[in-house]
């Protein structure tokens, strides 16, 4: 009897001790087996390089970080800049037609470009910059170029951004005014180019970035040309507000070794990247052709038209002879069915997401020449080269495009004729593609802007920037305006509101009206958006 009791006690006490060891194994236990460690990433430079696909895809907002994609692009860019630029319009009356497109700015959309870029692009860029020292400096240089590529777009949406002080605060972040941000962009591009030049010199023929490059297949020379061209773009952006700085930067870019990107495009593709506009337009029918681009391309008989858009499928439109039909922004839309059979974008998921074209570089040079800068050519020659480069890029023949005197066509809304923009309306672009040397600088600027805008398509942020900066091409004002008087229709929307997270959580936000030189709303022009009249 006693024996049993003794044995049982022993058993009852020892058994738990066997499985109750101690907490030494907790470190191992508290490591996520589905996580990826730094050690697992060392091969093939993944510890730095693997950040790049995320960064490159985040620029044009179609990186799937677990929340899905396409819709992210839709709210980050498509439902603002892509439409404000005049390229596109949605047939969908989101929120009973009270939304961005009728100038009631939707915080629930407009936060996205800001928050997603900071959460998924800038965090990665910061890590790369931390790791890209010594022999990895060239990775850091590419990251800098990408940072400027991504962040100048963000600045052109909102104005001030967190850039030079990024990563230094746990609780918010100090804003750069747009002017300060542009200065930092120029510095970063110049630094990056120097680093890459040195790398090419020291390691001729080496392509360590090839595995991660979704732009240029690892060719650092092309990266330098792109960086120089970006510098030129930024210089033109500020030409009206800061002409001297603009000239210096532009001339430095033009004269840099390896030169500008005068052929091909800078575009993101591969590694599973898909063009978000394909899904938005063809699958969701949430974005179709805009009325302003229809007016210009139809008026010009632009050979690129079928490359940009698909014919409308609405039987009524076809029977009335409208092969391509766009929708005007800011109109009464009762239901989605009304305009949904207008022209879709001719973009497939495999199309690369173009961020800059060589055609644009020629137009940047043309505008520089028009301003009297030393860019190695005349405005007229460079303008023609730009148009030809764009036609070549889209695989169409220019024909007599550059010799015709057609102006933009009136816009007809066959469903609701009150939305039409009739012949003689001041918002129709009354210039032709033909370069006329005797024309005024104003007309020349308009022609350069229109052609540049056409060549940039479908990159709405840059397209909207051109419209805001130069007033060209002219686009059509909204008819339905739900801004409550904040944004007058003829003034057009100038920027996006800061996201609520910044408003509510960032202590630096208290200074924002000073940095913006106006209230944080859609009517306040950006720093470079100066009144030309």
């Amino acid at each position, binding site marked *: 009897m*006693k024996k049993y*009791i003794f044995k*049982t*006690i022993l058993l*009852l*006490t020892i058994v*738990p001790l066997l499985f*109750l060891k*101690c*907490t030494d194994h907790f470190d191992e*236990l*508290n490591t*996520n*087996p589905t*996580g*990826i*460690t*730094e050690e697992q990433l060392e091969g093939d430079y*993944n510890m730095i390089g*693997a*950040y790049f*696909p*995320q960064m490159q895809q985040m620029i044009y907002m179609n*990186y*799937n*970080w*677990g929340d*899905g994609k396409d819709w992210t692009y839709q709210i980050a860019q498509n439902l603002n800049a892509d439409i404000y630029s005049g390229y596109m319009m949605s047939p969908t009356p*989101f929120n*009973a037609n009270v939304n961005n497109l009728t100038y009631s700015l*939707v*915080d*629930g*959309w407009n*936060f996205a470009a800001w*928050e997603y870029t*900071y*959460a*998924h692009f800038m*965090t990665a860029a910061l890590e790369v910059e931390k790791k890209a020292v010594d022999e990895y400096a060239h990775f850091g240089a590419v990251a800098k170029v990408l940072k400027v590529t991504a962040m100048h777009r963000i600045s052109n949406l909102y104005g001030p951004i*967190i850039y030079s*002080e990024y990563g*230094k*605060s746990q*609780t*918010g972040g100090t804003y750069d005014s747009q002017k300060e941000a542009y200065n930092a962009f120029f510095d970063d591009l110049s630094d990056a180019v120097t680093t890459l030049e040195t790398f090419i010199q020291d390691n001729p023929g080496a392509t360590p970035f090839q595995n991660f490059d979704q732009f240029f297949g690892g060719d650092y020379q092309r990266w330098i040309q792109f960086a120089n061209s970006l510098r030129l773009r930024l210089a033109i952006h500020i030409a009206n507000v800061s002409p001297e700085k603009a000239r210096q930067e532009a001339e430095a870019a033009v004269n840099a070794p390896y030169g500008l990107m005068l052929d091909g495009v800078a575009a993101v593709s591969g*590694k*599973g990247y898909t063009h978000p506009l394909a*899904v938005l337009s063809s*699958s*969701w029918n949430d974005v179709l052709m805009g009325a302003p681009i229809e007016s210009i391309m139809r008026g010009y008989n632009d050979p690129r038209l079928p490359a940009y858009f698909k014919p409308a499928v609405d039987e009524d439109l076809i029977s009335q002879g409208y092969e391509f039909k766009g929708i005007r922004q800011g109109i009464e839309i*009762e*239901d989605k*069915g009304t305009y*949904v059979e207008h022209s879709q974008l001719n973009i497939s998921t495999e199309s690369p997401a173009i961020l800059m074209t060589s055609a644009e570089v020629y137009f940047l040079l043309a505008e520089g020449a028009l301003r009297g800068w030393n860019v190695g050519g005349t405005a007229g020659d460079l303008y023609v080269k730009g148009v030809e480069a764009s036609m070549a890029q889209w695989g169409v023949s220019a024909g007599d495009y550059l010799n015709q005197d057609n102006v933009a066509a009136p816009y007809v809304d066959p469903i609701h004729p009150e939305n039409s923009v009739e012949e003689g309306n001041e918002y129709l672009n009354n210039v032709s593609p033909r370069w006329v040397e005797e024309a005024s600088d104003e007309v020349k600027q308009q022609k350069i802007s229109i052609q540049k805008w056409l060549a940039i398509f479908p990159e709405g942020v840059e397209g909207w920037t051109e419209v805001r900066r130069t007033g060209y091409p002219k686009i059509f004002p909204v008819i339905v305006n739900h801004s*409550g008087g904040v944004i007058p229709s003829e003034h057009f929307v100038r920027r996006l509101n800061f996201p*609520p*997270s910044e408003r509510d*959580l*960032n202590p630096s936000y208290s200074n924002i009206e000073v940095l913006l030189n106006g209230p944080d709303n859609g009517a306040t022009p950006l720093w470079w958006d100066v009144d030309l009249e």
Partner: protein
Amino acid sequence: MKKTDFFKQMLILLFLTSIVGEVAAQQITVRGTVTESSTGGEPIPGVSVVQKGTMNGTITDVDGNYQIMLPEDATLVFSFIGFITTEVPVNGQEIINVELEPSVINVQEVVVTALGIEKRSKGLTYSTQSMSGDELTDAKDVNLVNSLTGKSAGVVITKSSSGLGGSSKMLIRGNRSAGGNNQPLYVIDGMPMLNSVSEQPSTSIGGTNDAGGRDSGDGISNLNPEDIKSINILKGASAAALYGTQAANGVIVITTKKGLAGRTTVNVSSNTTVESAVSLPEFQDKYGHSSGGYSWGDKINGSTDYVDDFFKTGVTTINSMSLSSGSEKMQTYFSYANTSAKGIIDGNKLKKHNLNFRESGKFFNDKLSLDANVNLLNQSITNKPVAGGYYLNPLVGLYRFPRGMDMQPYKDDFEVYSIDRNLNVQNWHKELEAMEQNPYWINNRMPSKDRRNRVLSSLTARLDINSNLNVQLRGNVDYTNDRYNKRIYASTHTALSGSNGRYIVMNREEILNYGDVLLNYNNVFGDVSLTASLGASVNDTKVRSERLDSRPNNLHLPNVFTVANMDIGYIEEMDLHRQMQSVFGTAQVGFKDLLFLDVTGRNDWSSALANTDSENSGFFYPSVGVTAVLSDMMNMPGFIDFGKVRGSWSSVGNDIPVYISNPTNSLAAGGNLIFNSEAPFDNLKPELSKSVELGTEWRMFANKLSLDLTYYKTNTENQLFTLPAPAGSGFSSYYVNAGNIQNEGFEAVVGITPLAENDLFWKSTINFATNKNTVKELHPDLKEFRFGDQTSNSYWMKLVEGGSFGDIYGVAFARNESGEIIYDEDNLPTRQEEFVKIANASPDFSLGWNNSITVKNFNFQFLIDGRFGGDAISLTQADLDQFGVTQETAEARDRGYVELEGRKINNVREFYNRVGGRNGISEYYVYDATNVRLREVILGYSIGEEVFGADSFVKNAKVSLIGRNLLFIYKDAPYDPEAQLSVGNNLQGVDVFGMPGTRSYGLNVKLTF
């Protein structure tokens, strides 16, 4: 104290006590069972058994058994409150069974507390509320937790609006944790069980990867209510303190049935109820279709009731049988239950099988007791509807359907042949939207299946070393496997499916391994009694799950739902492992049976705290409580039978998620590396709840009136906030431990027995509870804590300092300085740009009134309960108003205007276009959430021996008519505010096309053989 030291000491203690046992061996061991004479032999636990004139004593266990060593010629004294004290001379007998006569009406005296330790309620220093198993089985619900609604003060039960097999949320004394768990710990026979809710809707639109707001179901609903003997709710942190890190939200202690010695009993019960939808929106039938699928058209002559036609009558049948048998040495309990239910939506079905086998026995002169239990569950649910939200929800298209139009063609032909594709495609009266599709297509062409297999098994061994000391070793394994798949056919809206369809497949398993050792000691030293336990435990849980989803990619072949056919676009892979090691102790010292001091202490080491500053020290959770039985201390007026006051203080925790102290990079579908952008948190702590509880209990007029009052205050600090990092910080998110959320409340339980004759018995219980939640503090850098994702709906839950849990933010009317609404040039109200607080979902107080009236063989029970105060928002109503399908819009059109705060607005349609819709002015859709309902009615008739005769095969029969949720006595909101989109912390107080509530009534038959 290092754990190894602890075990050494315990070993020494064990040896010492066995030697002590040997010294006393010249005496004899007496054992027996104490039963209650009035109930025909129900065992009474907790009876004090003392050798007369000495300090030698013990108490009976949960089965009424005792064992004591004493001289052959001693006399035993059996005493228990509510019963007449009985003395029995031993005279050398080794077995003494005693029947106690009740002195007054029986009162529950022993409660099963933390870790299964039984304590006399007289000495408890905190509030608990017990319920017998009958309360769960008289009017059964598929989820047994719902049967507790309204029956306990301070316990709020809400259920998911996801129909059959849906989860329920039990909230005890308010929400404490902003980001963590607010549900209690469930403990079954002293050991924890899983009650994980793996998925809940997180936004008012979508769900995981926009697959609709899915409710995965919970763990507690898996149990068979017939197996449950009693449920005891340990409401406060003090009551639960012995569970340390898991104690903050209270503990539900479930005791299950086991075989009884002596007779074989077979129980058969059958419960059938029919359910119908209630609280549907009110539709108009005066104005017809206008373009765009709205109902702002011309007058019509009525409309077919396609909404009523859509909902079916649900039927739930629960059949169960149990067998209980045994000898003094061995007892067996076996049960089987079969649940078969048809939901109110076509195709929604639930099937459930529960099998339970329990064997208990005594060995080695009854010194060793073994108790083993195996519980099996198999459950499948087909086509479980989404809990709400816009995506994949048939109710959106159904409710929005233009009035006066004929639904029949879209019901009969929800799909039509497509010559382009050579397959059938969805047919709807207008352009499909991601948020609105044909409801019959959703019902028929998005089939889903939820399958669960679960094994819950346990073993308890108890060794009685002597009459004062025993050691107990327990372990259990709870294994749950869930498989889920959803097939979405081609031609579903392309935002939610590839052109060839979409397939989601998920496999999840969760394992809980638990083991503990517990050393229990009790003794009486003159005026002082001591009950003490020391123990240690290991709690190890693993979750492994994989979810594959073809969206945003596609299927290769249309409408072929296999993994090989998927171009996988979304992967969620989880492998979570958590281990908690603990040592704990508790002691209760009683003085003269009228003053008690209760202390507990527990130290937890959690693996989730590896790599943090507190990895080695763990966290210590103490509690202390005092009770004074006033009625024994001083002379009370004659009508007072019993009175006591109690007070307690405790400090307990709420565990944190694993791995956050050690964030890593991860891979997304397609091999995309997702770099960690979370700031690592090396000073992580579990949440800490400090609480104070004061209470008093009284029984008067021969127990016809009882009163239990409790005041409590809980402050929960070190809240874990998962914050989206500021844009400029270099991280996308980071964690902080901060904040202080306070819950302060008052509970009253009043029991009245107005009638207590032999043939007529009426017992009535009133439960009252109020809780005030205050966010005393957040983080200095954190202005507000947000629940869930930002969506374009006009609804958001947020916490701000000075606010409270359940604060709802939305779009309000723009107002001038004197508070008047600002109108625009069209005489329409204007809105504020920024979200402001428009409502709070938490009730001010809740009240339950439960009655049981017995007249001879008839038994009539009814429960009325209500929640008073708080707000409810209906985005359903907002959306439907915009579409012009609601009765309100028709009345406004008849009238010619809408009146808003005294102003007439003539443009009715534009008004509803402005305030309605999912992102309109949600302030307009705030309703009073107060609701009072007749929750439960039972009318039963029992037949016993007097009819069947003493020798009959059938011993007892009871037939009951039952009804649940029969009618609202008061309700303002256009839906049932008790149904929630989520049983988590998000999405409270809002309805977004949630499944309607149901009313059910039926028949329950119980037979005992």
